[in-house]
């Protein structure tokens, strides 16, 4: 196995900047540097030296050219995660979920997130149908839905969605129908963003696993 692609050198860090869980202030993440391109430059530089070994697909193309590069994908993953943290879309609870995933429970995060999607969409439909009803007055019922939404969002680290729900609940507590409608619009919007970003995360993660699992035939 080629040393540049030796995964042991790249310790699996969730983010480029270490985030101590107890200190939320350290979530101020600077833009990720383009450091990760370096190994690829090196690869290009030394590619044609005699005796140089690099991973090659059956077609003769280096795998990194096909985009199936575990290191680059991990970098993409870290970049996306850093972005989501920076934007407040996810918080450290999401990292807790990732830490709970291991060989004995390899799909834990996606399982929990899929349950969250399923439940959230049901809640959003319920909230919308409540508010669309001309005779609506059951703010208590709305409060119950919102409490559930707040709880589940908090459990998976969906910070922005959770915050909108809290504002929504405040409007509901004041029986402010117009405020509730506005909050619902915003909530649907934020939920959409979250769902898209999480899908993106899972896609990259799947590709990364695929790439990491590929056997590298050696070229002499």
């Amino acid at each position, binding site marked *: 196995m080629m040393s540049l692609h030796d995964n042991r050198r790249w310790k699996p860090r969730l983010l480029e900047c270490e985030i101590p*869980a107890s200190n939320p202030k350290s979530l101020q993440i600077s833009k990720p540097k383009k450091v990760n391109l370096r190994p690829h430059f090196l690869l290009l530089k030394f590619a044609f030296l005699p005796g140089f070994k690099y991973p090659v697909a059956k077609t003769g193309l280096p795998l990194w050219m096909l985009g199936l590069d575990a290191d680059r994908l991990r970098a993409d993953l870290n970049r996306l995660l850093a972005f989501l943290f920076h934007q407040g879309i996810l918080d450290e*609870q999401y990292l*807790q*979920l990732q*830490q*709970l995933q*291991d060989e*004995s*429970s390899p799909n*834990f995060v996606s*399982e*929990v997130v899929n*349950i*969250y999607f399923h*439940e959230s969409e049901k809640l959003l439909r319920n909230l919308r149908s409540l508010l669309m009803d001309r005779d609506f007055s059951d703010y208590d019922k709305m409060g119950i839905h919102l*409490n*559930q939404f*707040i*709880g*589940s969002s*908090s*459990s*998976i*680290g969906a910070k922005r969605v959770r915050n909108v729900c809290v504002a929504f609940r405040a409007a509901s507590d004041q029986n402010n129908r117009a405020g509730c409608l506005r909050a619902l619009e915003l909530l649907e919007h934020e939920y959409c963003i979250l769902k898209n970003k999480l899908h993106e995360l899972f896609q990259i993660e799947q590709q990364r696993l695929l790439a990491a699992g590929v056997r590298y035939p050696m070229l002499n």
Partner: protein
Amino acid sequence: MGNMATQTQFHVLAVDDSLIDRKLIERLLKTSSYQVTAVDSGSKALEFLGLNGENEDEERNSSVESVSAADEDHQVGVNLIITDYCMPGMTGYDLLRKIKQSSSFKDIPVVIMSSENIPSRINRCLEDGAEEFFLKPVKLSDVNKLRPHLMKGITTKTEMQSNTNKRKGSEEIQSPDRTRPRYNELEVV
């Protein structure tokens, strides 16, 4: 004996009406090597324990052995109960009270979880017998705080076993039981 082997793995009963939180607490507990049973309501928890609102005396005098966790040999014993506070029907607080009022189960440590930080609520739970109160979302560091409460439970249990020598006196081995807590403590450390 069979009892000795099962004693090394603690059994936690988790109660939460939220599916996501149930999954989370289950994973947190399994990661810490606990055996977990998760139910979605206080009434299901009582059912699992064998406390169906029956009279305590009836349970003891009954010749029909129950197959629930209420079996005195503790073959499917519960070492700790962790419950959400806000649940429809029976709240976590109601469940706490019922357990502390039960002669069979009052010594099982109970932990309450809540997403709301309300000091009066927290104090009331602690005063009425809850060992800990966790704010949600629950983390691994919280679950680590459970171990001392579970270890305490073993000492209490073995003392109870040697004191209440009811039916199967011949099968209850006393001296090894007494040394067991110390042995377990060393292992865990």
